[in-house]
């Protein structure tokens, strides 16, 4: 069964304190791993797509990496505006484009 598990559920950082969020996945034949950012009361906003182990992508203070079993979202020197819930998802094994989401990690960055 396709499955995505994110950890930790919640993370509190001081401004400038770098850290990483984890996304472990189980899927038959990875067709894509996706990271989203969600602000309270809003729809998720697309951040990255990773397709193969060893791939890395960066956007401002965020860098996503991928291995055969997990993905990490590294946050370097975070700012309060980085506070949000970060969602990880994998495309499932069917050919319908369905995404299976993890529960998310809620990040709070204090000034």
């Amino acid at each position, binding site marked *: 069964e396709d499955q995505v598990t994110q950890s930790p559920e919640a993370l509190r950082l001081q401004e400038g304190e770098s850290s990483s969020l984890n996304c472990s996945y189980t899927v038959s034949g990875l067709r*894509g791993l996706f990271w989203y950012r969600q602000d309270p009361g809003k729809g998720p*906003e697309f951040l990255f*797509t990773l397709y193969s182990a060893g791939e890395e992508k960066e956007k401002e203070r965020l860098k996503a990496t991928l291995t055969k079993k997990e993905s990490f979202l590294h946050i370097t020197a975070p700012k309060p505006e980085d506070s949000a819930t970060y*969602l990880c998802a994998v495309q499932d094994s069917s050919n319908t484009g*369905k*995404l299976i989401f993890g529960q998310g990690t809620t990040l709070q960055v204090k000034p």
Partner: protein
Amino acid sequence: SQTIHQWPATLVQPVGSPLSLECTVEGTSNPNLYWYRQAAGRGLQLLFYSVGIGQISSEVPQNLSASRPQDRQFILSSKKLLLSDSGFYLCAWRVGTLYGYTFGSGTRLTVV
């Protein structure tokens, strides 16, 4: 440009009342369309998806139904709402299977 519209933003409905949430996309053709529900503090649960007009697949048995009367219109409905239908409903579209979803702004449904 490609955009997705979802309305209403918030809705408070009594138990037993009907529901209709609408989602439309612009600037693309033949998108895959999805309805997700997000309970408080939880991840996204896929409810329905559609790969074309009139083609609906249901992921979980529930009190809801979906329809796709036009290529870029996706509707979520219920004949009689339950308290457990409360949640944050999100519509999403995807052109092909190589790229991530684009989500709508969501509807906060509270059944009272």
